[in-house]
């Protein structure tokens, strides 16, 4: 019987059309991949070169100088970013994890859960500046906190709104990945719903939830737009939770466009510190994620 197809040699022939197409497309795909990661590498390298050289103890520990003077640092902005992010985390983590637990454990398929999941996705897509304007209208312009307008608390709440969808979604997804048999096992020896969730399911999903929370915090820490409307800025050390507070992102926004060398240098230094903090948070998230696999 003669074969219906031509039989070629088994040795690889690079000159064949299919092999040349393979080569060409592999090169093109590689090129585009390189283009895609190029911005990341260039941004980090540029910030490292421009800002890294300014790093010293004075930078981390002193206040920015008045316009026209040299020296100074971004100590108040670093503390401010940490405070505002901490407030945001204290609000968003309990609310977000609670909502995620409700979605995954109690309301698996009801219309309310579907509505909340859809709403979470929409909230995740809301531009951050709109979160800022929303909190401005709700808290800052109404002066609900002891007659204060701009405050660290308002900034923290705006960032919490931004963090919420990430925390809810990662909790929901992480709990859905916990094997059903584990819940049955706990129920089968007489554990109540509360004990099953708090002692078995949540610990089993802990590292994925922690990863999501750390990533949400890292994202919020770098936000500028919501803070401009809420926490504003302050050239002084933090004066309390209900007063305006400095933050690194707003410092960059304010100082980078000033006509003074010292301020522009501080903006670069601040970019460097912020990028390093976000990188560290991502590394922490990876490490937490690794915990679950071991």
């Amino acid at each position, binding site marked *: 019987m003669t074969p219906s197809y031509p039989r070629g040699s088994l040795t690889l022939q690079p000159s064949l059309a299919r092999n040349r197409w393979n080569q060409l497309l592999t090169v093109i795909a590689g090129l585009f991949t390189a283009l895609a990661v190029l911005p990341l590498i260039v941004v980090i390298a540029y910030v490292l070169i421009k800002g890294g050289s300014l790093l010293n103890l004075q930078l981390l520990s002193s206040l920015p100088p008045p316009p026209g003077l040299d020296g100074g640092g971004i100590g108040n902005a670093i503390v401010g970013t940490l405070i505002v992010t901490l407030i945001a985390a204290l609000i968003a983590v309990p609310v977000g994890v609670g909502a995620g637990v409700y979605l995954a454990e109690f309301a698996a*398929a009801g219309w309310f859960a579907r509505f909340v999941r859809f709403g979470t996705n929409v909230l995740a897509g809301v531009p951050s500046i709109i979160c800022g304007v929303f909190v401005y209208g709700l808290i800052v312009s109404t002066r609900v906190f002891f007659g204060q307008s701009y405050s660290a608390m308002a900034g923290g709440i705006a960032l919490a709104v931004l963090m919420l969808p990430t925390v809810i979604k990662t909790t929901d997804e992480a709990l859905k990945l916990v094997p059903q*048999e*584990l819940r049955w*096992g706990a*129920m*089968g*020896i*007489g*554990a109540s719903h509360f004990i099953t969730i708090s002692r078995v399911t949540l610990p089993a999903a802990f590292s994925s939830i922690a990863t999501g929370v750390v990533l949400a915090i890292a994202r919020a820490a770098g936000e500028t737009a919501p803070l401009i409307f809420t926490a504003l800025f302050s050239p002084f050390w933090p004066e309390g939770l209900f007063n305006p507070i400095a933050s690194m992102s707003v410092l960059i926004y304010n100082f980078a466009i000033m006509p003074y060398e010292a301020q522009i240098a501080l903006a670069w230094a601040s970019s460097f510190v912020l990028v390093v903090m976000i990188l560290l948070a991502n590394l922490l998230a990876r490490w937490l994620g690794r915990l679950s696999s071991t």
Partner: protein
Amino acid sequence: MPATATNTCLALENVSISYSGQLAVSGVFMEIPRGKVTAFIGPSGCGKSTVLRALNRMNDLIEGCSLSGRVIFDGQDLYERQVDPVEVRRRIGMVFQKPNPFPKSIYDNIAFGARINGFRGDMDELVERSLRKAALWDETKDKLKESGYALSGGQQQRLCIARAIAIEPEVILMDEPCSALDPISTLKIEEMMHELKKSYTIVIVTHNMQQAVRVSDLTGFFNVSAQPGSDRKVGALVEFAETGMIFNSPKQQATLDYVSGRFG
């Protein structure tokens, strides 16, 4: 007869179970005696696991599952409104098809259930006693602090049995406990069951008919049958008798066909 009534541990009266309105098992009447091993056999989809899960309200955890009829345990219908399903599961423990130890140490796997049930006493002693009953003590006594996941599949399943025993239930339900295990582990679990039935009532679902013969005192044969006028198949209890009767001289032709391998 009063004599049999006192020896009945669980009684099913006209139990029908459906998933999302689709009937899965219908009209089961059964009296499961205390202190014996009762096996459920039958082809896949005949509802034997569904009936087993109905005995400690595990079906509550499956969405859309509903039950009609009565399951009487300790003089109480388990499906009455005022019954607390958590308390039911404390007295009727369960071992699942796939070993499902908690991601905790071997010690804590057993201590967890005891703690949440308010155990007051010597925890070390309870852990040792439970592991001994599950024939796992000799293999694990030197590594109680290691993760339950570090054990082999057969050891994990015995750990799950030890975990169930530790809360001292009156009944232990086992849903194909050996289907994921090798023959040697299976043998160990079967030997253990002979020990356990001295103090517990055991109900086991199995696909392995030799296993039913080896371990059980009574056997219930479930079968599926097409409902008239529809394609759907519904499970039902065909015959329930002493194991020797079911395998040697069954009354129903369907049982004979199944146990002698001439099924379908």
